[in-house]
C-alpha cells in the first residue's frame, strides 16, 4: 500500500515537472466549493488557459489563513474567494498588490473603489423560506423581530465559523445600531439552532426541519434553474439587505506578475462574468442586467442595499459578536 502511494506521489511529481517545463504555472488559492465540478473553478481554468499559454493551478482550502501562515513565502500568485470580513486583516499584511482594474463601471449596487481587492461577484443576504409551507413569512426585519416566538424557526450560521453568519451580525448592527443586542434578544427564541457553516444550515432547511434559513437573495435561482422548483423564495425586507461581494487579489510576491495581472483582466471579461451566475449562483460583478439568465433578471430584489465597508466592519465585529453571545445566553 505504501509503495503504491509513493508511486502515485512520484508520478504526480513527474507530471508536475513535465508541465512546469512547458508553461508557467499560475497558482490560485481558492475556497473548497470553488474547485468542485459544480463550482466555477473548472470553467475558469479552461477559459483562462485558452488565452494565457500557461497552466492555471487551483489550491483549495481556507484561503487567507493559509496565506497568513505562509507569509511572504506563499506560493500563491492569486487569492480568489475572499470576503470583506477578512480584507482588513489581509490588507494589513502588506502581502497584496494593486489590481490595476477600472472599477467605475461594475454592475453592483455598491460603489467600489478598493485598489487591492477586486470583486468578481456579489449577492445580498436574505432569509429563504418555502412559500408552500410557510404561510406568514416576515414582511420586514422588524416584522421578524416582533413575530411570536413560535411563528417560525430559523437556522442561522455561527459568525465565528461562517462568513454568512458574520455578515448577519453586521446586517443587524447596520439596521439596529446600539439596539442590536435588543434585536438579537427578540430574534433568539426564533432561532432553532446555529450551525458551523452554510451547508449544514441549508441542508436543515431543505430537509424541512427549519422554516427559514439565512442564505442569499440568489439562492432561489438555483432551485428554479436546476430543479424547476419555484417554492423557495427569499423574504425581501424594506430595511435593506446586506451586501456580500466575493473578492480576488494578486500577491506582491508573485513570480509571474504579468500573468497574475492577465488573470485579473480575465476576471472582469465577459467570458468569466458570463459563467458566474449559474456556476456560483450569485450576481456577476460586471455584466449588464439584460445579459443575465432570465431567472436572475426576475429575482425579487431589495430596494435598498446595506454595506458597512471594511473599516467599519472590522471595528464592529468584536463588539457585535459579544452582543450576539450575550443575547443568546439570556
Amino acid at each position, binding site marked *: 500500500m505504501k509503495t503504491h502511494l509513493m508511486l502515485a506521489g512520484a508520478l504526480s511529481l513527474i507530471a508536475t515537472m513535465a508541465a512546469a517545463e512547458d508553461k508557467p504555472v499560475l497558482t490560485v488559492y481558492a475556497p473548497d466549493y470553488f474547485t468542485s465540478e459544480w463550482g466555477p473553478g473548472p470553467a475558469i481554468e479552461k477559459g483562462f488557459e485558452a488565452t494565457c499559454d500557461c497552466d492555471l493551478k487551483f489550491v*483549495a*482550502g481556507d484561503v487567507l489563513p493559509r496565506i497568513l*501562515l505562509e507569509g511572504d513565502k506563499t506560493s500563491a500568485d492569486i487569492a480568489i474567494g475572499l470576503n470583506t470580513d477578512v480584507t482588513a486583516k489581509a490588507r494589513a499584511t502588506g502581502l497584496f498588490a494593486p489590481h490595476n482594474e477600472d472599477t467605475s463601471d461594475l454592475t453592483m449596487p455598491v460603489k467600489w473603489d478598493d485598489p487591492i481587492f477586486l470583486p468578481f461577484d456579489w449577492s445580498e443576504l436574505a432569509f429563504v423560506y418555502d412559500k408552500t409551507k410557510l404561510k406568514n413569512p416576515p414582511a420586514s426585519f422588524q416584522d421578524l423581530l416582533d413575530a411570536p416566538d413560535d411563528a417560525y424557526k430559523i437556522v442561522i450560521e455561527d459568525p465565528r465559523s461562517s462568513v454568512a453568519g458574520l455578515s448577519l451580525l453586521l446586517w443587524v448592527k447596520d439596521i439596529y445600531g446600539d439596539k442590536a443586542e435588543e434585536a438579537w434578544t427578540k430574534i433568539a427564541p426564533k432561532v432553532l439552532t446555529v*450551525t458551523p457553516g452554510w451547508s449544514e444550515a441549508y441542508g436543515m432547511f431543505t*430537509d424541512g426541519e427549519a422554516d427559514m434559513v439565512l442564505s442569499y437573495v440568489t439562492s432561489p435561482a438555483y432551485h428554479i434553474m436546476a430543479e424547476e422548483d419555484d417554492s423557495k423564495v427569499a423574504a425581501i425586507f424594506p430595511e435593506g439587505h446586506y451586501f456580500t461581494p466575493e473578492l480576488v487579489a494578486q500577491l506582491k510576491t508573485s513570480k509571474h506578475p504579468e500573468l497574475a495581472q492577465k488573470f485579473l483582466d480575465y476576471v472582469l471579461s465577459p467570458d468569466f462574468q458570463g459563467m458566474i451566475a449559474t456556476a456560483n449562483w450569485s450576481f456577476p460583478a460586471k455584466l449588464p442586467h439584460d445579459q443575465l439568465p432570465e431567472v436572475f433578471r426576475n429575482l425579487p430584489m431589495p430596494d435598498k442595499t446595506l454595506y458597512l465597508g471594511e473599516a467599519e466592519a472590522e471595528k464592529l465585529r468584536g463588539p457585535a459578536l459579544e452582543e450576539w453571545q450575550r443575547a*443568546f445566553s439570556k
Partner: protein
Amino acid sequence: MATRLLQIRRTPLWAVLAGAALAALVLGTLAAVTFRAGGLTGLRETDLAAIRFTLWQAAASALISCALAIPVARALHRRRFAGRGLLISLLGAPFILPVIVAVFGLIAVFGRRGLVNAALAPFGIDPISIYGAQGVIIAHVFFNLPLATRMILHGWKAIPAERFRLAATLGFGPAEVTRHLERPMLRSVLPGAFLAIFLVCLTSFAVALTLGGGPRATTVELAIYQAFRFDFDMGRAASLALVQVAISVVALLIAARATLPSSFGAGHDRRATPIRQLSGGADRVAFDTLAILLAAVFLLLPIGAVFARGLPALAELPAMIWPATLTSLVIALASTFVTLAIALPLALVATRRRWAEIAAMLPMTASSLVMGTGAFLIARPFVNPTDLALPMVLLTNAALSVPFATRILMPEIRTLQADYDRLAASLGLHGFARLRLLTIPRLARPLGFSAGLAAAFSMGDLGVITLFSDGQTRTLPLALFQLMGSYRMDQAAGAASLLLILTFALFWALDRAGHYADPR
C-alpha cells in the same frame, strides 16, 4: 522479580518509536503553532465558559453512555437469538458515522418534523426539542453507546465460562454473580470506557455547534476554531489546545487510578453459553429483551432515516464520487495498517508502562485544527504541503484511531499477560515467535474490532483534508461536503448513503475477520 527486571530492560524499540511518533504529531505540531504565534496568549472569559461547558457535557455524555451500555451489554451477553451477531455489528454503526450524516439522521428522528414528534402529536404531547444541551448529549450517547456496549461486552466475554459454571454449581443468585463476577469485571472495564467517551466528547465540534442551539454550547474546539478563523490569534488557539491536552491527561490519570485489574485467571476457552440458572427468570428475560429492543431502535432508526433519504439518490451520483470513493478506501486500508502497527506495540507495553498508555491516548487530546496547522508549518519549508495531502490524511486518521485500538486491546492484553506470561517464559517463548503463536491469535478479536474501527474512522473523517487539499484530490466526505456546498442536497444524501454502506462494510469485514482468526 527477575522477570520484571528483564522486561524493563526489554522495552521494544518499536513501541518507543511509535510513542515518539505520536508525541511528535500531537505535541510537536502544538509547539510549531505556539512558536509561529510567538508564544501563548491568555484566555478570555468566554474561553473559560467554553471549558466549563465542554467538561460537563463530556462528563454527562460519558456517564449516560456507560450507564445505558451496562444493561445492553449484559443482555447481549446473556441472550442468544437469531441475528445476534449481525445486531451486535449493526449496533456499532453510529460510532463510525461521519458526524454530519449522523446529525441529519438524528434530526430526522428527533427533530421538529421527526418521527418521534410525529408519533407524540396525536396524543397531545408537547413536541420534544433536540436543540440545546440535551441535543448534544443525545447525539453523543448515540455515537458512543455502541462503543461502550462493545467494550463492556468484551469484558463480559473475557470472564472464563468456567467461572459462570462454578457460580452455577455453587448456587449463586443474581446478587452473588454481580458481586463476585460482574462487578470486578466492570471495575476493570468501565473507567476505560468512560475515559474513551469523555475524550471523544471533549474535542467535539460540529455536534455541539449544530445541535447545541447557539453560543451557549461552545466547546473548546470551537473556541480554537474561532481563535484561528475569526481572530487570527494563533497564540490563543495554542493556549486552548494546551488546556485540552491538560484536561485529557488529568482524566487519563484519574481513570488509571480507578481501574482495577481483573483477575479471573485463565479458562479453557470453552464457548461461553449462557447458563439458564444464572440468566433465566421471566423478569430478567423481559428486562434484557427491552434493553436490546430500545437500544436497537435508538441506534438504528436514525441510520434508517439517512438511508431512506439517500438511497433513491444513489443512482444519480456524479462521476467525481467514484475516484473520491477509491481514494477514501485506499486511505482507510493503509491507515488501518498504520494504526495497528502503532497501537499493538504500544498496547503491549502500556499494561506495564504508564508512558506508553499516555502516548497512545495523546491523539485523542489533540485539536485536529492545531495538528493540521502545525504539520503544515513544519512541512512547509521542505515541501509543498498540498503534495502531502494524502499522506497527512492517512497519518492523522491513523493517529486518531490509535487511542481506541489501544483501549480495546489493553484489557485483553492484561488478561493475556496475567494468564500466559509464566507459561510463555517457562517455554522460552518470546520475540516474534511469541507474537505469532500466542499474542496475535489470542488478540485476533480485539485486533479485528480495532482494525474495523480504524478503517471506518478513516472513511468518515473530514479532518485535515480541508487544510491540505489542492481541490482536485478528494475523499468521499469532502466530496459530500462539496455537494452540500453547491446546493446539491439530494446528491449529498446519496453520497452519505454510499459512505455509510462502505464504512459499515469495511468495519464489518475486518471485525468478522478477527472473529474467524480467533482459534477459540
